[in-house]
C-alpha cells in the first residue's frame, strides 16, 4: 500500500514535470501563430469578459489598496520635496538678494540719468547696519580713497538716505535721515515753502517737515524734496530735488506749520547706495547748474569742459 502511494506520488510529480517541460519546449519552439499560442489566445478571448467583469467588480478593492499605497507614496514624495525645498531655499535667498541689489542698482542708474551724476556719485555697498533702533546709521564700504568726505549726501534709487558722518580709509559711517541728529532743508514739491525735515520725536521711522510758513498748504501725498538752497556759507549739503518722502498729514501750530512726512526710501532694506562726493554748493555742482542754464547750442559745447572741471573740483 505504501509503495503504491509512493509510486503514484512520484509518478504524478514526474508526469507534471515532464508535461511542463514538454509545454515549455513546444511553446518555445513554435512560431507566434503555433497551436499553443493559439490556445493561449483562445483562452484569453474566453476569459477576457470575465477578467473585465472582475476588473470592474474589484476596482473598489484596488482603489482601497491603492489609497494606502498612494498615501505612503505621497508621504515619501512629501519628504523628498521637503528636502528639495531645504536645498533650494538658500538659492532662493541668494537670488532674491541679487534681484534686490539689481533693482537698487537699476534705480541708481535711472537716478543718475536724472542729473545726480553731476555730483560724482560713488556707488557703495552697505556692509553694516546699526542694530540699535535708536541710532539710524549704516556703514558703507567706500572711504576717503574713493573721494568720500564727511557731510557728503547719500542717496539710493528711491531718494535721499542720509549723509556721511565719519570717514575711514576703508569705509564710512552714514547717518540716515531718520537719525535724531539729522536735519535736511526741504520743500513741498508744488510750493516754494521750505522747512527743515527732522525725525519725529517718539517715532524714529517717521519724519517731520518743520518751520514752514503758517500759510503753507500741504496736501496728503505731496512729495517732499530737498530744497538745495544756496545762500552763501549756509548752502544746503544736498542737491535740490532729491525725493525725501510724502506728506501724510498737517499739524496746526501757531507761528509755523509742520507736516508729517513718510520717508520714500526703504531705510530698513539698504544694500547699495550712492555717495554724492561733489556737494550741492560746491564748485562742481555749481558748474553743472551753470551749464544747464546755458542756451541749448552752447551748453553742448561747454558740457565736456564743465564735466572736466567738475571732476577736478570734486577731487579737491
Amino acid at each position: 500500500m505504501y509503495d503504491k502511494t509512493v509510486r503514484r506520488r512520484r509518478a504524478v510529480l514526474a508526469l507534471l514535470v515532464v508535461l511542463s517541460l514538454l509545454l515549455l519546449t513546444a511553446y518555445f519552439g513554435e512560431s507566434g501563430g503555433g497551436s499553443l499560442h493559439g490556445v493561449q489566445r483562445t483562452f484569453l478571448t474566453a476569459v477576457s469578459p470575465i477578467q473585465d467583469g472582475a476588473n470592474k467588480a474589484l476596482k473598489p478593492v484596488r482603489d482601497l489598496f491603492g489609497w494606502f499605497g498612494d498615501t505612503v507614496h505621497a508621504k515619501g514624495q512629501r519628504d523628498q520635496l521637503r528636502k528639495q525645498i531645504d536645498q533650494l531655499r538658500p538659492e532662493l535667498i541668494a537670488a532674491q538678494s541679487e534681484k534686490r541689489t539689481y533693482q537698487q542698482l537699476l534705480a541708481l542708474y535711472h537716478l543718475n540719468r536724472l542729473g545726480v551724476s553731476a555730483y560724482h556719485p560713488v556707488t557703495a555697498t552697505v556692509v553694516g547696519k546699526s542694530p540699535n533702533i535708536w541710532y539710524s546709521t549704516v556703514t558703507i564700504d567706500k572711504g576717503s580713497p574713493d573721494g568720500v568726505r564727511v557731510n557728503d549726501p547719500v542717496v539710493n534709487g528711491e531718494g535721499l538716505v542720509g549723509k556721511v558722518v565719519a570717514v575711514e580709509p576703508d569705509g564710512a559711517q552714514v547717518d540716515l535721515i531718520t537719525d535724531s541728529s539729522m536735519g535736511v532743508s526741504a520743500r513741498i514739491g508744488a510750493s516754494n515753502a521750505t522747512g527743515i525735515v527732522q525725525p519725529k520725536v517718539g517715532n524714529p521711522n517717521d519724519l517731520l517737515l518743520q518751520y514752514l510758513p503758517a500759510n503753507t498748504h500741504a496736501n496728503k501725498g505731496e512729495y517732499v524734496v530737498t530744497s538745495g538752497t544756496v545762500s552763501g556759507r549756509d548752502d544746503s549739503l544736498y542737491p535740490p530735488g532729491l525725493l525725501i518722502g510724502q506728506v501724510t498729514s498737517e499739524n496746526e501750530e501757531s507761528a509755523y506749520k509742520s507736516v508729517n512726512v513718510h520717508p520714500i526710501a526703504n531705510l530698513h532694506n539698504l544694500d547699495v547706495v550712492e555717495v554724492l562726493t561733489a556737494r550741492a554748493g560746491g564748485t562742481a555742482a555749481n558748474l553743472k547748474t551753470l551749464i544747464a542754464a546755458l542756451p541749448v547750442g552752447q551748453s553742448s559745447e561747454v558740457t565736456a569742459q564743465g564735466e572736466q572741471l567738475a571732476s577736478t573740483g570734486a577731487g579737491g
Partner: protein
Amino acid sequence: MTGAPSAGLLARVGALAVVLVFFQIGVVSEVPVFGINADLTPLLVAFVGLLAGSTLGAACGFAVGLLVDLALLQTLGLTSLVFTLIGYWAGRLRELRDPQAGLTPLLVGAAAAAAALVGYSLMEFLLGVDAPVSLDLLRQIVLGTVVDTIVAVPMWAIVRRTLEGGLPEDPRRRRRRRAYTTGGLSPLSKAR
C-alpha cells in the same frame, strides 16, 4: 493525506485557484507595495500542498501555473514547472515533518515566494533572456520575498478556511489523537 482527494476538495482547490489567480491579475498586480507587487499564487500552491499533501500540491501548482501562463500570455509551462515543484515540496514537508508551529505558514510562505522568484529567474536565464544578474534583481527578489511573507499569514487563513471542510482530516486533530493514543502519553495510560 494518503488516499485520492475527494471531489469536494478538488472543487474547492479549483475554485480557490481560479478566484485567486484573477484576484492576483486584477487587483494585487496593480497595487505595488514597496515598489513591487505581491504574488499570491506561489503562496496558494504552497499552502494547498501543506494542507492537502504533495500530490494535490503538485497538481495545484501545475494548474495554477498553467492558468497564470495562459492568462498573462507567458511562456507556457514555465510557471507550471516552478509551481509544481513548490507544491510538491510543501506537501512533502507536511507528510514528513507535519509542522504545527505557529510560524510554519510564515516560513513556508517565505520559502515558497523565494523559490518562485529564484526559480522563475533561473528558468528565464536558462531560456536565454538577455538580462544581467544585477543587484537590482537581487533586491527585487529579496523585497518580493519580504512582501509575500507579510501577506502569507492572511493567505494561510484564507486557504485553510476554504479547504478545511474538504480535507479528510485535520493535521492537528490527527496529531492530538496520536498523542493521546500512542506512546504512553494518553491520560488513560498514565492512570494505569
